[in-house]
């Protein structure tokens, strides 16, 4: 089957991107600057990412909140108009079917889900669709992420008023004459924005943004190294059907009211780990000696297998290898020395607290 292409496919080609298949899409993994340079430009100034492969789904109707409450551990009543929450689709054993963003705008719920899980999530929503809820798949919309400390200056230069618009807010914004829906959010650990707009406007806005000196084009390669440094989970690595939110490092996604009510899918298993501590937990890892340690590598302590690397590679902001992985709680202490069972000689690896690079969100 042919891979799908985002509205920015030609834009990527024109800017020299290397295109790779990703979750059924042809996506830019990097531009000529390369992953390290794109990563560092995002942290130093700002990066423009095409994340149009992620699915944008809208739920309308009186039952939308109750429906989402039945599938997630989120207190839907706590998502005020104009606000965004990070959430999780959970299964009955407490595993994570996918992670997602939920925004409330104009009284309706706007979901953004992972590209690789979109088909699953849409089927899951359809199977649980209440009579008084309409689901709209916004396949005619693109999604751009503008991430980094200069992102707000870039939008301000285009005449956008960001007064009172802080982390995890959502608004309609006019950017250079283009109607957009913007959330102040992202997946890099930096301040930034995710901009939803009509597919037909995407290339025009991307070109406008790319023409600004502070903006670098950034591919999926650096998107992954940025989110790894920020300690943000990627479904299929830090989260999956067998990993509950406490293990996966996203216990903050369990709303207080829902924890008290224990009324979400998998609540029994999840609350057991929440209250008693999990058998294993997500930590940062810093390989010693310069050699990256890759996904799936077994972690050893005193010659025993004690865990594994879930995302491993290079951390450009540290100018050193970095990784995320799962270890038992008694070893989840910064400074603990472990060994990674890399091929040939094992690699010493040090447990580090998350995030590896501090978040710099603009909270209200």
């Amino acid at each position, binding site marked *: 089957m042919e891979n799908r292409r985002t509205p920015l496919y030609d834009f990527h080609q024109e800017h020299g991107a290397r295109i790779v298949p990703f979750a059924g899409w042809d996506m830019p993994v990097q531009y000529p600057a*390369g992953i*390290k340079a794109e990563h560092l430009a995002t942290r130093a100034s700002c990066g423009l990412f095409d994340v149009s492969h992620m699915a944008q789904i809208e739920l309308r109707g009186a039952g939308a909140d109750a429906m989402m409450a039945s599938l997630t551990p989120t207190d839907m009543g706590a998502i005020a108009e104009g606000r965004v929450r990070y959430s999780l689709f959970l299964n009955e054993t407490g595993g994570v079917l996918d992670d997602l963003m939920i925004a409330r705008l104009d009284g309706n719920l706007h979901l953004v889900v992972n590209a690789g899980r979109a088909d699953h999530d849409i089927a899951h929503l359809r199977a649980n669709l209440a009579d008084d809820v309409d689901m709209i798949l916004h396949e005619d919309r693109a999604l751009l992420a503008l991430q980094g400390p200069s992102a707000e200056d870039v939008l301000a230069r285009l005449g956008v008023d960001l007064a009172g618009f802080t982390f995890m807010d959502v608004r309609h914004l006019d950017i250079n004459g283009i109607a957009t829906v913007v959330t102040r959010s992202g997946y890099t650990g930096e301040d930034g924005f995710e901009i939803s707009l009509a597919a037909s406007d995407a290339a025009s806005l991307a070109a406008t943004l790319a023409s600004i000196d502070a903006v670098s084009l950034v591919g999926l*390669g650096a998107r992954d*190294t940025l989110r790894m440094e920020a300690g943000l989970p990627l479904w299929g690595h830090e989260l999956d059907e067998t990993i509950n939110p406490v293990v996966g490092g996203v216990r903050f996604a369990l709303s207080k009211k829902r924890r008290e009510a224990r009324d979400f899918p998998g609540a029994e298993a999840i609350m057991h780990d929440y209250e008693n501590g999990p058998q294993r937990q997500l930590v940062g890892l810093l390989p010693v000696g*310069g*050699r*990256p340690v890759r996904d799936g590598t077994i972690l050893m302590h005193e010659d025993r297998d004690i865990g594994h690397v879930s995302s491993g*590679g290079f951390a450009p902001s540290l100018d050193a290898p970095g990784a995320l992985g799962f270890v038992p709680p008694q070893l989840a202490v910064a400074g603990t020395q472990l060994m990674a069972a890399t091929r040939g000689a094992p690699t010493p690896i040090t447990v580090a607290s998350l995030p590896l690079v501090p978040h710099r969100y603009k909270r209200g």
Partner: protein
Amino acid sequence: MLRYTEDHEWINLEGDIGTVGISPHAIEQLGDIVFVELPSVGAAVAKGDAVAVFESVKAASDIYCPAGGEIVEVNEAMLDDLSAIVPDAAMDSWLFKVKIADSSDLDEMLDEAAYAALIA
């Protein structure tokens, strides 16, 4: 005499010493190199052995020895500045020199024209 493998190594044969590196195309495909592991001087190697590793931001790539023999020199200097490993300097970024036991190991390898056709 310069020859290439289908795995994108090059070997430049002078007498019975072959200098080995990876092609500009391979360097471009790997992207930013963040770690290189070189073989040990004195090691006996067979044709096709994985003798070195290039690690990029995203992945690790084995480098296979194009010809059997003994490793007689490694390019330690390249480890001082991995950012200098770029397609235009592929011949400077040699990895090791191998004293070749049997020069017929090179018989089946690609010349520059054949390699250019492979990656075209």
